[in-house]
């Protein structure tokens, strides 16, 4: 254990910036998860695999000589239809069942996707080069790859568009109504079946965007989806459903926390400390809830 953060003050700045840029990307994936969890009461274990599939779309564009940044437009379009297809084939059969069934179903989809991607794309680790260069700050003591800045910017852009869409459009209002009370929405003439399909499609599209960004910033591999599922699950748990600013804050907070854990405790404790944080937050939340209950008593 060493205290580099104090020896080299610039590391603090670097860690915060890295964490925020990373967190914004996580928050985008988590936002998709929160959306469909809130609307359909489904925890999508295949979330990370949809992300990776989106990454492969960008990667193949890169392979055929198209700049992978265009992936953030193409991937969500394709992934939207993939999402609708998954909904029609599997999810609509489990949407009204209890949570356990839907977890099993999406877990199955996750395994299927991993194997299919492995068959179709091979087991090599791949990446798409954006050639975006680097931004140097503070006498080149802090470095930010432009690809990360690009990722964060695109994530914010998509999240913002979605928020506006949910507020203003007819479908957005229908989605929100269904989330509040599906039965009442149905009685009032909302086609909930269509709303569910659209929600799942939008979630898959968000995953597609995130995947394209990940192929530009990091690496992709058919079996690399699970960590993204787990991170977004955590962000949603911490933030709570239907709490968009919460998702954004908890995403960025998580990113910064991870970076600092890495510097202070060592890289081997990075993921471990994230889980420790999850446990602490859950315990704290319960504690707060139980106090509230006492008031009621």
């Amino acid at each position, binding site marked *: 254990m060493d205290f580099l953060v104090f020896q080299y003050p610039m590391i603090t700045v670097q860690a915060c910036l890295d964490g925020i840029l990373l967190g914004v990307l996580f928050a985008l994936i988590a936002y998709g998860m929160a959306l469909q969890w809130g609307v359909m009461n489904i925890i999508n274990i295949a979330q990370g695999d949809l992300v990776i599939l989106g990454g492969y779309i960008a990667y193949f564009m890169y392979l055929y000589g198209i700049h992978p940044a265009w992936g953030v437009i193409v991937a969500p379009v394709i992934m939207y239809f993939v999402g609708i297809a998954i909904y029609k084939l599997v999810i609509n059969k489990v949407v009204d069942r209890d949570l356990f069934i839907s977890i099993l179903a999406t877990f199955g989809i996750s395994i299927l996707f991993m194997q299919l991607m492995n068959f179709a794309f091979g087991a090599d680790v791949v990446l798409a080069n954006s050639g975006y260069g680097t931004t140097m700050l503070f006498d080149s003591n802090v470095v930010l790859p432009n690809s990360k800045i690009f990722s964060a910017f695109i994530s914010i852009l998509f999240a913002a568009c979605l928020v506006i869409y949910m507020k203003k459009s007819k479908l957005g209002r229908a989605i929100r109504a269904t989330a509040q009370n599906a039965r009442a929405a149905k009685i009032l003439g909302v086609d909930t079946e269509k709303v569910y399909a659209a929600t799942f499609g939008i979630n898959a599209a968000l995953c597609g965007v995130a995947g394209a960004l990940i192929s530009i910033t990091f690496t992709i591999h058919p*079996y690399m989806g699970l960590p993204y599922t787990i991170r977004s699950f955590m962000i949603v748990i911490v933030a709570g459903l239907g709490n968009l600013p919460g998702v954004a804050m908890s995403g960025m907070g998580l990113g910064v926390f991870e970076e600092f854990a890495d510097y202070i405790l060592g890289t*081997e404790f990075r993921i471990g400390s994230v889980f420790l944080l999850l446990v602490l937050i859950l315990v704290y939340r319960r504690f707060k809830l139980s106090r509230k209950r006492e008031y009621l008593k």
Partner: protein
Amino acid sequence: MRLNKIILSFVSALVILFSTSVASFAKVVGDKIILGAAISLTGKYSSNGVHTQNGYNMAVDRINSMGGVKVGGKTYKFDIIYYDDESNPKRAAQLAERLISQDGVEFMLGPYSSGLTKAIAPVTEKYGVPMVEANGASRSLFTKGYKYLFAVLAPANLYLDVAIETAVELNGGKPVRIAQAFEQDAFSQDVRLGILDAAERTGSKIIIDDKLPKELNDMAATLVKVKQMKPDVLVVSGHTKGALTAIRQIAEMKVDVPMLAMTHCDAAKLSKQHGKNSQYALCASQWHKSLTYKDDFFKDGMTYAADFEKEFGYDPPYQSAESSAALLVFKDAFERANSFDQKKVRDALAATNMQTFYGNIKFAPGGQNVDKPMVLFQVMCDASGKCENKVVAPLKWASAKLIHPVPKWSER
């Protein structure tokens, strides 16, 4: 109704009996020596699994077409039964059981990766089945006292200690400051132990010692430390993921370090995926086609590479070369034992002392090959951006001079 059931179960019992007896090969059928192998044809190791299988097949075809194996005055041909272990250690161990107890295989070839070899070795050991493996380098495989395990490759702790020694040498014999980042798996941790040994030997100091998570795809934190603390050598090992991530982020973050040493560069197709950004990376390799070892079957590395490319359409990675070498070792041992008795073949294997196109092979009592040093190559690119791996150490085989220190990013 009841009678029907009885007949049905009788018939199915017959079918099961029949199918097992058909599947049951003896070790040597007619003029065929049947070897067994569990290989990762699907799952996360499938690309390297295929390299391994191609290496085996290439050698089987070559040995068979050049006269086969002569035992007791009779000529035999090699044949291999493959099963797909799905990159899963449990499955690999089951398949080894199946190969031995159901298919009657009496000689085995190894799977891909240290982890899977570790899963299979106790099984082959239990049945006294000699196994020549070509893709499990973890040191822990060779300290368990296995008697029937033979590895044609150098153990993992020797992968990168050449790099440290070279760095010290270039530093005028003075100790160097080392930064290292290793994935937390058996193989990479063994590479790490090798570095620790080398550091102690040379009095060098390890100033960063990071352990990377398995689902690693971001090592920015490690690289920030490297940027601030300015070590003389940066060592990274984390399979293909580690190699690709390191190069991407080193280039993006413009991390200047005089020497960068890694593993798995050719498996990661570094120079293809990263082009000029991968330039100057030093990579540990079991084999390189430009080495001048020779044998009667493949002649030398260059010929092997050309033949392999003709058959499979790509340049052979060392995983294929070492797999081919495993069959040459088996052939040699069968002929010297002049018998198919497992005990005799095992003793013949233990006494192996030969040269193949892949390198010299001589087994230590633990089963590892002690006669073949690792080589280091450096990725070098020309002005047009075409990159090639050139051997730079050990000096005996060097086809290019090591470029050291690595030029700064601002000067590239």
